[in-house]
């Protein structure tokens, strides 16, 4: 239970250090908001948040989703107290909030949500100042409990997380993955796993368009692998188009360019190694070669957020490593140091949306683990996992969480990791396993 919210000093210190090392929480997306958050709490600790019961037929669901999203956001401690003295939420009882009790429970903020005819009215109380700090009416347009409705509630949770902690949550997102030869999507909280493609041909390696209007993935046929671009309509159906490629060629690891998705970058090879090629997403022009690997391979590209640089995998004598280059392939250089005989096999890079880190997988003691390195100073390499084998990381839009594949429970499933606290949670429970997770941008932003 989270009622005992006193955090051990060591943890608070670590969190404080993490805060300092990150240079505060100056995320790019935060600057658009002019209102400074009013909540104050001990620096470096997670504020306690109490979500009061919500009225109405779907009130319990709203409250459960908000609590879970704030918990999964890893920036706040959700105080899971029961309805003790919380029945003061009835209309007109705002003057009777029991702030001293909330303070004793460890709450820095209290979320009071009320279902209205048009949506959800949310008030956030600052327990220390005993004042309502923020109020907003959020729309809830879709049918209650439908996937779209849930996304809207997630977006409300993300806004509350921003009000309380200064960091916007990533609950209103979905994760693409491959399972049983199909591409699936699943909500960030593990709800609504939905197959997007048929079982044949087998589909792999999905990636999002930066605006989430399309996805791109690889299909495996007897004439070679092919890149498929698919429209993402609201109901999950959508037209798809297969990029032309020579018979027998491999065409794999496609991604959209950042920040606008105008190009698709993918690895193509036939007889003489594999190189990265760029092709307009919606044009008819033919693909342009980006890397020159001379019989070796270049695969698994990832764009920097502003779109000027790419990181990708290439093989050198002795092992696989990460290279970084301009988006047109020039100025290529090794991102991670390499020495002959190095068997660490660094692959599957993912450039964080804030541009600060590149996550990747590498072998250590015969098992793959998740790491990250700063593309700027290329100094210390951080290791994030050590349980089982862990592969194929993809960053959340807040550049704080990673989704990756792990076999730590015996089957390959997607897991989500908070890179600041190290807290993991299992996202999928797919019967035939899940691989190649790709985190969407925020799908709804309030």
């Amino acid at each position, binding site marked *: 239970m989270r009622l005992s919210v006193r955090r051990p000093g060591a943890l608070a210190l670590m969190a404080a250090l993490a805060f300092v090392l990150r240079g505060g929480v100056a995320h790019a997306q935060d600057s658009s908001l002019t209102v400074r958050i009013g909540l104050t709490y001990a620096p470096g600790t997670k504020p306690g948040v109490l979500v009061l019961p919500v009225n109405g037929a779907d009130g319990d669901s709203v409250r459960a989703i908000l609590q879970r999203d704030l918990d999964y956001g890893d920036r706040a401690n959700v105080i899971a107290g029961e309805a003790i003295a919380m029945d003061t939420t009835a209309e007109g009882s705002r003057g009777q909030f029991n702030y001293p009790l909330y303070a004793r429970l460890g709450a820095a903020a209290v979320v009071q949500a009320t279902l209205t005819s048009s949506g959800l009215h949310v008030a956030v109380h600052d327990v220390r100042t005993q004042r309502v700090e923020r109020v907003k009416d959020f729309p809830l347009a879709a049918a209650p409990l439908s996937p779209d409705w849930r996304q809207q509630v997630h977006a409300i949770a993300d806004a509350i997380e921003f009000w309380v902690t200064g960091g916007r949550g990533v609950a209103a997102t979905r994760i693409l993955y491959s399972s049983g030869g199909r591409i699936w999507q699943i909500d960030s909280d593990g709800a609504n796993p939905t197959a997007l493609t048929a079982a044949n041909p*087998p589909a*792999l*390696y999905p990636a999002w368009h930066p605006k989430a209007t399309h996805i791109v993935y*690889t299909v*495996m*046929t*007897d*004439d*070679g*692998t092919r890149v498929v671009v698919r429209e993402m309509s609201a109901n999950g159906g959508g037209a798809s188009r297969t990029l032309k490629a020579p*018979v*027998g*060629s*491999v065409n*794999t*690891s496609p991604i959209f360019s950042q920040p606008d998705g105008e190009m698709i970058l993918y*690895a193509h*090879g*036939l*007889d*003489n*190694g*594999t190189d990265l090629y760029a092709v307009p997403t919606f044009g008819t022009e033919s693909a342009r070669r980006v890397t020159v690997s001379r019989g070796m*391979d270049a*695969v*698994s590209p990832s764009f920097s957020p502003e779109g000027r640089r790419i990181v990708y*995998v290439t*093989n050198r004598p002795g*092992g*696989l490593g990460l290279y970084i280059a301009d988006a047109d392939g020039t100025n290529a250089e090794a991102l991670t140091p390499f020495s002959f005989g190095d068997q660490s*096999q660094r*692959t*599957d890079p993912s450039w964080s949306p804030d541009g600060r880190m590149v996550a990747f*997988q590498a*072998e250590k003691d015969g098992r*793959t683990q998740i790491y990250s390195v700063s593309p700027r100073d290329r100094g210390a390499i951080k290791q994030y996992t050590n349980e089982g084998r862990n*592969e*194929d990381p993809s960053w959340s839009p807040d550049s704080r969480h990673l989704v990756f594949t792990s076999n730590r429970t015996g089957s390959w499933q997607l897991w989500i990791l908070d890179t600041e606290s190290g807290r993991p949670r299992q996202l999928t429970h797919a019967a035939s396993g899940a*691989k*190649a997770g790709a985190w969407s941008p925020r799908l709804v932003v309030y």
Partner: protein
Amino acid sequence: MTRNHRAIALALVAAVGVSGCRKNPETVAMPTDTSTPVPSETCDAACRQRRADSIATANEARDRAAREAADRARASAIEAARNTLLATIYFDYDASDIRGDGKAALDAKLPILRANAGLQIRISGHADERGSDQYNDALGQRRAASTRRYLTDNGIDPSRIAIVSYGEQRPAMSGADENAWALNRRAEFEITAGGNNIVPPQ
């Protein structure tokens, strides 16, 4: 008498069948064993007819057996050629160059491909489960391509050989140890045309 003749004829036929030799039917059919009663001068027309029938029956059986034996030999030669053609070759870890045992296996395929100009094949390259799935797509492609190159460098028309990479997606053997990995780092061969009338190489 007739029964004895037939027994002898069949025994001889069987011997011929086993040895696979071809002999003049007349000489083969004539029994020479003195322990067997020789047809007497007194054999009448009916007797001679029975004797002729018996010889004809024995000859037929012998010919049929010989044909079947030849068919079997031919079928087994075709089967052997097919097996040689389809024999999987294996690769070292993270490598796409053809190993010594791979070269021997590919050399054995060459005469079959040369003897069957209508034969078309597809080579699929595969990787073990270690490392990046996407890199393994590229590695499988290099394995398929280098296998095809070995055959085309030895005179096989490139248009007869398609390639495809399945990366690590279609393991031959499940398992997370070197035994399974070694069997999964491979190039497989599949006949895509002309497989019904394979001529074994001379």
